[in-house]
Every structure is written in C-alpha cells, then in structure tokens.
C-alpha cells in the first residue's frame, strides 16, 4: 500500500474540468487500498468532489495564497532561507508520490520545488497549454526544473506536449499522453432533438473569452449570411468572469434571438437531447471534456484545431475543424458544416463509434494504474511518434 499526495495549482475557480482526472483517480486509488492526501487551495465552500473524497478517507490540507511572490522567494532561497509553503505538508505526510495537477503550463511550480527539496518523487499532470502564456528568462529555470525533474509528465494532448517543449526549449523524455474522463455514461445515446424550430448548437465551456473564444461565435453569427439562417447557439457553462461581457456583445449585435446563455448544466446527456451539434471555438485547451461528451452522445462538432480536438475529430467525417481561432476560419468551418447539415445526425453516430473505438472507457482507472506504476519505481518513456504527430499537422 502506498501513500499518494495530490496537489492542484487551481486558483481561478473553486473547481473545473482540470480537476476531474486527478480527483477521480484518487477515488480509484482509495478503492485499491492506498492512502491519499490532498492539498487544495482554500475555498469558501468545499467543492462537492472534495467532500466526497474526504468521506472516502482522503486527508485534506487547505493551502492559501503564498505570502511571498516568486522573486522574493528566489531571493530568500539564495540566502539559504526556505520559504516554500509546501515543505511542511510534505514532511508531515511523506507521500511515496506527489501528483501535481496544473491547469495551464505556466502555473506555479512551488510544489515541484518542495518535492525536489525533500527528495520526494512527483509527476506533473498538465491539463492545458496554449500560445497566450509563455515561460521566459525570469522563470525558465524554475519550469525546466519542474517538468524535467518529474518522474513523469502526463499531457492530455500531443499538441500540449509540443507547446510545453517549445516553451522549455527542451525535450521531455518521460512524457506520456493520458485520457481525460467525462461526465456521461459510456452507453450514452440521447434522443435526436426535433428540427422543426431550426438547428440548435451548444457551445459548452466556462464563460471565459480568452480560453473558450465565445466572442468568435458572436463575430461569425453577426455576419449577414448567418442572420438569415435558422441556426441558434446556446452558451452553456459556469461564469468565469465574462458572462456580462458576452451578454453585452449579444445585445450589441442584436443577436438575442439566436444566441443565449444557458448557465451551468449538470446533466450533460439531457443537454445533448436538446442540441444537434457542438460549437467549440477555443483558443487554448488540453482535451476538452465537452468534445468527448458530445462525441459519446452522438453529436458532431465544429471545433478549432486546438488541444486534442485535432486528434479526436476527423475533419469532414465526424466534425469540422477550423484551422485557428479566428472569426474567418471559424466561419469557414461552420459554413462547411452548414452545407452538410442534413448529415449531422449520421456524422454524430460515426463520431460516437469512433470515440468508443479509440478512447478509454475508464480514463481514471488507467491513470491510477499509471500512478501506481510510477510510485513503484516504474519508468515512463515517451512514444517516438508524438512530436512527429504534432509536427505532422504542419506537414
């Protein structure tokens, strides 16, 4: 039996899709008889998945914001003073392996630093990467230490791995690509919605324009040709600060009759029983749960070639890929989709078959097994075709 420590760098929201893989894997490890301790950012209300983990036997530690910034900590470290806020927790819990989950590739690396100080092996589980955030001279060595010093680095897409290696300007030999879990059943097959009132697409993701690109949907649908077509889009997801701005944009362009904000949806299968296709104009992603779930529910998707979308969707077969998150390129992909709208149902059926043939039915159990393997001293070696897959996109 082993002791696993889980640390999440999540700070912007109480909970999110990035937290699903580690938290579910923690459940699996508890079921398998291991002990689990968790360090999570202090919240006003404990997120439900953490309450469940605690009931299941996990030990919680709530960490606050670091009192000192990165520069101050580095200066004090040069004087031999340890100000890392996580060392004490590691000393108390002495995990056999720490799983560090980071929402974006430039998130904080204090826990990795603490693990290295204490000689405790750790793995990094990166949930998204993109071009809006870059490592730089001031923090490059810290990040190289974090990623290259890990026993394994788990990515959710080859595109993310390529971005991180470009950021680090280094190869990560112990990289592996893992699958993210989903919120629908493996057998999900929601009914096809009525088409009498036109086609309804769902744009599923936090209301956060920087990452999820909902503004691009407004920019495309405000164009004259789209105003004449019976197509509506509902934005589903929790507010990450941009609900008001999105609402104002919809009003500004007089699109209230075809764009609406639906809020957070708990029942994803029920959501897909009311929508014909997914619209996912993300600017950066890891592996969007929304895309996995739409495909499992038999829905086609119009998505930007970001994160894992380029690997999961076959362009013009199971969905329509926009080459980049710009209004013109999203328009181009949506136009192709519109011209083949009578085939959406069949394409969705094919998407459901393909995802079940190629994707794990239980990603959290697979991930838990990988963690057991690493904690027992096993090594992770990257497959040689990953970077060539990322390069191949350009070829």
């Amino acid at each position, binding site marked *: 039996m082993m002791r696993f420590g889980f640390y999440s760098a999540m700070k912007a929201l109480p909970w999110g899709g990035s937290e699903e893989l580690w938290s579910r894997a923690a459940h699996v490890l508890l079921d398998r008889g291991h002990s689990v301790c968790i360090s999570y950012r202090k919240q006003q209300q404990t997120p439900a998945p953490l309450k469940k983990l605690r009931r299941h036997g996990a030990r919680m530690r709530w960490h606050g914001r670091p009192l000192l910034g990165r520069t101050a900590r580095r200066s004090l470290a040069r004087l031999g003073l340890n100000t890392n806020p996580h060392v004490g927790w590691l000393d108390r819990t002495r995990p056999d392996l720490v799983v560090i989950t980071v929402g974006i590739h430039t998130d904080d690396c204090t826990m990795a630093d603490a693990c290295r100080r204490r000689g405790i092996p750790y793995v990094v589980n990166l949930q998204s990467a993109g071009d809006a955030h870059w490592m730089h*001279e001031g923090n490059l060595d810290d990040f190289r230490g974090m990623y290259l010093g890990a026993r394994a680095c788990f990515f959710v897409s080859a595109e993310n791995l390529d971005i991180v290696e470009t950021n680090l300007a280094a190869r990560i030999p112990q990289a592996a690509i893992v699958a993210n879990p989903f919120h629908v059943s493996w057998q999900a097959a929601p009914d096809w919605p009525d088409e009498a009132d036109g086609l309804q697409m769902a744009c599923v993701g936090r209301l956060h324009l*920087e990452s999820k690109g909902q503004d691009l949907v407004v920019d495309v649908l405000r164009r004259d040709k789209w105003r004449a077509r019976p197509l509506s889009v509902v934005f589903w997801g929790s507010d990450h600060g941009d609900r008001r*701005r999105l609402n104002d*944009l919809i009003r500004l362009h007089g699109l209230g009759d075809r764009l609406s904000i639906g809020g957070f949806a708990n029942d994803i299968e029920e959501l897909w029983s009311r929508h014909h296709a997914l619209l996912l104009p993300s600017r950066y992603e890891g592996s969007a749960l929304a895309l996995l779930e739409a495909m499992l529910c038999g829905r086609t998707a119009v998505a930007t*070639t970001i994160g894992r979308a380029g690997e999961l969707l076959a362009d013009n077969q199971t969905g329509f890929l926009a*080459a980049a998150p710009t209004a013109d390129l999203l328009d181009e992909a949506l136009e192709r989709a519109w011209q083949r709208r009578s085939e959406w149902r069949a394409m969705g059926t094919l998407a459901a078959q393909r995802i079940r043939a190629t994707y794990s039915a239980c990603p959290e159990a697979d991930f838990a097994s990988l963690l057991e393997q690493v904690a027992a001293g096993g090594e992770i070696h990257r497959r040689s075709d990953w970077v060539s897959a990322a*390069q191949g996109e350009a070829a």
Partner: protein
Amino acid sequence: MRLAFYSTITGLPWGGSEELWGQAALLLARRGHEVFVNMQRWPEVPNRLTELVEAGADVHRRRRSRGGRGLLRAVRQCGVHWHPQARWLSRVRPDFALITSSYHIDDVSIVDACLRRRIPYAMNLQCASRLQWIDPRDLEPMRRAYASARVCFVLSRENAEILSANLAMPLEHVQIVDNPYNVSRKPRVPWPEGEPWRMACVGRMHFLSKGQDLILRVLRQEKWRSRPLVVTFYGQDQGNERQARDLVRLWELERHVEFGGFVPRVEEIWANNHALLLPSRYEGLPMVTVEAMLCRRACVVTCCGRNGDLVDDNETGFVAQAATVKLLDEALERAWQARHQWREMGELAALRVDQRYSRQPVEDFADRIEALAAGRVSRARSAA
C-alpha cells in the same frame, strides 16, 4: 497650449508604441506649445525623453506603482477618487491630454482624474489582441475611458474591432493613424546577390507577441532543412532569446537560423535580406512591415494589426491567415515557390505602401492634437 502626454508603458523603458506620441510631442514643443510628459521611471533614460527635455518639455518620470492595479481597484471600490498621478495632473493643468496605451489591457485609470478635472483627452491605442482580455473588474472604468475620449486613435481597423469586442460596446469616434517609420521615403537598398535566400524576422525577441517560435517550429520540418533558406532574428531580447537559441540547438537548425541582434540602421538589415518574415500573434501597426516595403522587400506576415491592409496576398507578399505553425508554413511554402519573384514583388510593395501610407505621420498626428486641443474638432465619427 498646455499639452500633456501620458504613457502606460511599463514593461520596457521605451518601445515602438512610444514613437508616435514621442515625436509628435517633440514637434509640438518646437511649435511653441508647453509639453508635459508622464511615463514610468527606469534606470536608463530613453534618448527620446532626453530630446524632449532639450526641447523644453517638462518630463515627469513616475515611480512604479507599489500596489499596482489591485490597489487602484480597492480604492475605486471604496468610492474614493484617488490616483497616484492625479497630483501631477493638478500641477500641470493641461488644456488637452493624450493617453497612450501601449496594449489594450493597460491601466488607463488616469482618465478618471482627467474627467474629474474636466480635462479633454484622446486615447491612443497602440496594440490590441484577443489573446488577453480586459479584466472584468476593470470593464466599467475602461469603458468610461474610451467612451469619454474626444477621439480614440488606433492603428488598424482590426485593433478597433478587438477593442470594441473587449469593451463589448460600439466605438464610434475612432480614427486610424499611421506610426512614424525609421527609413527615408525612397531608400536606396541594394538587392543581396546569390544564395542562400535570406529572410529577416525583425522585432523584440518575445514569443507571445512576435511569434518567433513559429518560425523555428516551421523550419524544423524535414522539407525546410534541405532548402537554401536562412532566417535572421533582429531585435532586442524581451525574455525569450535564450529559449530561441536553445531551440535552434535542440532542433539542429544552426544552418538555417542566425541571430543578428539589434541593428539601428534599418537599411542595413534589408541590404542583407531578400524578404521579411513576421509571424506576429498580435500587432497594432508593425513598423517593420512598412519599412521592409519601403525598402522594396516582399513580406511574409500573419494577418494581424495593419498587416492585412498593407500586404496584398500573392502580390506584395504572403499573408498567413493566423499565427499557427500550419498556416505560417502554408504561407511560407507559397513564398518559397515564388522566391524568384520576390524582387519584383518588393518593387510593387514599395509603390503600394507609398500610396497607402502617410509621408508625414508625425506632422499629421501633431496637427490632429493641435486641432483637438483648440476644440476645432468635435467628436469625429468612426473611420474604421
């Protein structure tokens, strides 16, 4: 008249975003106006500031704000009208202020102090992108800043659209202006003879904005390794040069990539290069595109900022629809197939830019500031 120039730039002591107001302020000082400047203090004093002081301008180099925007937000939430530079504004009492925002998310809360003192002002936005968004907590003051300005100067229609989307409000008093450039109008630049084909990527070494990483990610592909093409990076380091050099080593691109450092004489760059390669993720109006075109060079650029209006795809250059490896590769491939036409395309580029770009952007801008300050211009409707 008493004219105030406030710049938001914080990441650098000076930059391309400062040239328009800096040169216009110098000209206005020489025309006899009282010029006041407020910009962040750095250990080094930019040459342009020294010139301004010599021309009689009153330059205030403000300290870096200790509490940053968090402090300003907290003060605002308490309903207190306070700004660290309000005293400067009270002292200067300008007839007109120009607020230059080097990037659309920069803090422009100085505008509230202008509004309370009934000082008319214009905004001068030098760059915008959709990669970063105005913080929702700053949305209202930012809206107020742009909505209450006499004019919002921007450098491209694309930037105006980005700003409008960020603020989620219409911008009806936008005017597009040209930035000054650093070459003569018809420079004599010899064409470099012989192989390899040489392209120059000119700009600060800053992956987020200038996208130099994309060039390396394109060139690492097998097909480019066998082609006689050399790309030279010119420009100062802004945090990513070490990564660029390490990537060149990691991907064994030494035969195809060189580092030229900062070259003050632009003509010198073009005397050694056949074309521009500019894979920016965002821009306002890249001076390097204008300068390369004036120096009769074709341009391979991404469609951001003014690039899309300056470069005619397949005629005076090659435009990648977005800053991605795949789309840059596609544009560069078209360019490579047409490399024997680069010289002619460059000649055409010089003609086109001469037709589309002001011969005297600084004088034009100074005239507009004078007219605004004199109240001769009512709130203009959008040109964008």
